[in-house]
């Protein structure tokens, strides 16, 4: 049985910097593939509604008449499905998450 096996870790800990990042003084590092919030280039959108039908959480709303596309950010689970199915490739996932919000709010985009 080792004698006080934790000592090594504790001593090492005393002489190293904190492993946590000092956010917000040090900005958060994102990976290129991180799934954050959904972005839309609404000029390219043809309002076909495929993204609306496929979204697992029903976060997207599309209206052909009004030429509008909306999303409830708090519903979206950043699954990437809408990005994959969009025929015009006008959706993309940002690496940054959407900001915290106090409820379900629609964010609308118009062509």
């Amino acid at each position, binding site marked *: 049985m080792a004698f006080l096996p934790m000592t090594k*870790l*504790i001593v090492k800990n005393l002489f190293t910097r904190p492993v946590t990042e000092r956010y917000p003084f040090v900005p958060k590092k994102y990976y290129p593939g991180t799934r954050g919030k959904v972005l839309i280039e609404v000029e390219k959108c043809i309002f076909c509604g495929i993204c609306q039908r496929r979204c697992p959480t029903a976060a997207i709303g599309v209206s052909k008449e009004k030429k509008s596309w909306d999303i409830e950010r708090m519903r979206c689970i950043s699954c990437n499905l809408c990005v994959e199915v969009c025929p015009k490739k006008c959706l993309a996932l940002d690496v940054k998450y959407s900001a915290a919000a106090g409820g379900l709010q629609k964010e609308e985009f118009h062509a």
Partner: protein
Amino acid sequence: MSGRTIIPFGPQHPVLPEPIHLDLVVEDEKVIEAIPRIGFIHRGLERLVEKKDFIDFVYVAERICGICSFIHGMTYCLAVEEVMKIEVPARAQYLRIVWSELSRIHSHLLWLGLTADAFGFESLFMQSWRLRELILDIIEETTGGRVIFGSAKVGGVRRDISAEKMQEIVKKLRSYQKEMDDIGKVFLGDLTVQHRLRGVGVLSTASAKALGAVGPMLRASGVSSDIRMMGYSSYGTLDFAPIVEQDADCYARCKVRIRELDQSVGLIESAASKMIDGPIDVKVTGTPNGEFFARSEQPRGEVIYYAKGNGTKFLQRMRVRTPTFANITPLLETLKGCQLADVPVIVLTIDPCISCAER
């Protein structure tokens, strides 16, 4: 001779990550019997299968559990793929192994931290979670999510890992392995830790088998059973053996998990070396018609997915038997006759994941 008292344990308790309620019948400090009550976080996810098309349902399956998310999604895919007779490309199968083992490592590190916290060893808890963070970084880099990978899909996987990245991951994991060893030494060698774990919560081999224990709980009771040995998703091509311990107490369960950390790193290494270039998914056409039971090994034990399709794009029935659910009965057995102060540690050694047990 004193009378019996009932002490409620949970659903809110400092050691419990998730709500489960136990009525502990105690005589002095000794637990005579434990009566469980679950169902605090039932979400009705199995029923949702009738409203979500079978391809999109993998997102729901992944969200059954926040820790073994990938393996849940993957097992669902295995079931549907078998029903639809889809052959998953070899590269995708190895990628699935890599992600499964990464989730095993992060889950076990999480468990080690929680257990250290349960017996009051705060710095050990922090150290375990520091390591887990490094694994989560690898996961985020390769899948885009830290907890919900979102990389399994019917017919393959969604993302690829390039050969260089894979090399880098293996190298990183090897260096973390040394740090995991250091932590493992504390868990297995420290006197105070041994004092809390040795001889506590013994589950005999016979009762482990009779009560249907799964995963590390079963293997710590001396039963050599690991669903990965069945060879799903190319596990059959890798060389490994179930990790078995004989002592059947909390210490043995801890040891099984610590040894599995090493094993998982080894499995990722060999999966990386076998990975051949090729497609990562196949196109899925048609709808599932038929039924299948898919089984896989999660960090907590065997999970079973039953899927039944009727030729439409909505499955008719989906059923999940999660490892925690199977381990609750053995847990009640181990609680019999233990000291009240040991209850938190014993409850934690089944690695309870209640929200997946209740779905």
